[in-house]
């Protein structure tokens, strides 16, 4: 009788302790997530690093032109090495990025400072939702593989949907302590009154450390963003 009792007790105790451990783990994770959200948007201490591994997410047409416009005003020695990512179906963007890099390269020796990669998109325009479940899984695994290889410290993006999985993975890396990164999001100049879906997600979930908009109408609606005026510049 007594033996049976103690057996039940010990079983209950072990179940209890497993439950307790799980709750503890969840609480710890939540605390960590909250801490990461709190730390996002806080500037890094002065002189942390001379240069940052930078990931640049390119989109199609207008997006890429805007991104290269932004890159042209950043000091290249501070953002090096640079990794460019574009959708696998987008041939033009990486080509434009290559010619941009060629135009800024001081000498051929430092050419390796930049790399160009393609990423699978989760859903192409017009693709059915059923097949997009599978392609989304492939896209996420591919994004994870690229992020593990690059482990960026700075991410620059301005709106193409491909930046979402990359930024979410970057956030998970922050939570897990794999790599701390600063995410800068510049909403496209084409967005005047409403943010794009990517922009809205990164703003609301506070994944973007610094958020920039190019029209005063948007700044009114999203006060945490910096209003920087139109960035389409000559270079």
């Amino acid at each position: 009788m007594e033996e049976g009792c103690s057996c039940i007790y010990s079983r209950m105790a072990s179940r209890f302790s497993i439950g307790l451990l799980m709750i503890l783990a969840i609480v710890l994770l939540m605390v960590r997530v909250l801490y990461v959200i709190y730390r996002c948007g806080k500037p890094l201490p002065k002189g942390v690093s001379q240069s940052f591994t930078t990931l640049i997410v390119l989109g199609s047409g207008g997006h890429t032109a805007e991104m290269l416009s932004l890159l042209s005003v950043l000091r290249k020695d501070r953002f090096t090495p640079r990794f460019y990512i574009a959708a696998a179906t987008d041939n033009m963007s990486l080509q434009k990025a290559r010619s941009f890099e060629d135009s800024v390269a001081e000498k051929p020796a430092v050419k390796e400072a930049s790399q160009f990669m393609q990423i699978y998109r989760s859903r192409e325009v017009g693709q059915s939702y059923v097949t997009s479940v599978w392609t989304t899984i492939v896209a996420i695994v591919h994004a994870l593989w690229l992020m593990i290889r690059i482990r960026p410290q700075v991410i620059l993006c301005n709106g193409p949907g491909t930046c979402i999985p990359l930024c979410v993975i970057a956030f998970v890396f922050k939570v897990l302590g794999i790599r701390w990164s600063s995410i800068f999001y510049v909403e496209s100049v084409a967005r005047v009154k409403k943010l794009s879906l990517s922009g809205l997600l990164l703003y609301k979930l506070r994944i973007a450390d610094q958020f920039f908009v190019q029209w005063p109408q948007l700044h009114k609606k999203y006060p945490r963003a910096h209003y920087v005026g139109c960035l389409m510049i000559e270079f």
Partner: protein
Amino acid sequence: MEDRENAKRVVFVTVGTTSFDALVKAVVSEDVKDELQKRGFTHLLIQMGRGIFFPTKCDGADGSLVVDYFTFSSSIADYIRSASLVISHAGSGSIFETLKLGKPLIVVVNEDLMDNHQCELAEALEERKHLYYTRPHTLYQTLKKMELESLVRYTPGDGTPVARIIDRFLGFPDD
């Protein structure tokens, strides 16, 4: 003939990477061609993308507007540079390419596109008088009433504030 070559004033029409047959049809309509000629334009060059509507080419031998077209080109900027007026779809790429080169611009919004946030940009830039903004079926009216002299030249933006914010955030000293 040489005189004509000297006084060459090109209207360049661009639809971007997709198709926009409604725009192509609108620019080659008799009304629009007449109005363009009345305003002293001599050539109409159309980048028609993936469209399936092929306009009739015209060499202008009878004194009418010269009409020519092509599908795609990697150097759209060169065409814009040599044009006296650009009629473009609402893509931000070609809008800013044209504005940066200081060419008068009419933006025609593609009403068939589902996600039509792009007309926001054209609307906002029209408010600032950088361009004219219209739809395919109102292109003629817009041409008729437009005064190219009243357009305000677009001054390219300044990226240094963004660079400064990013640099400070990352702990770099100001230069």
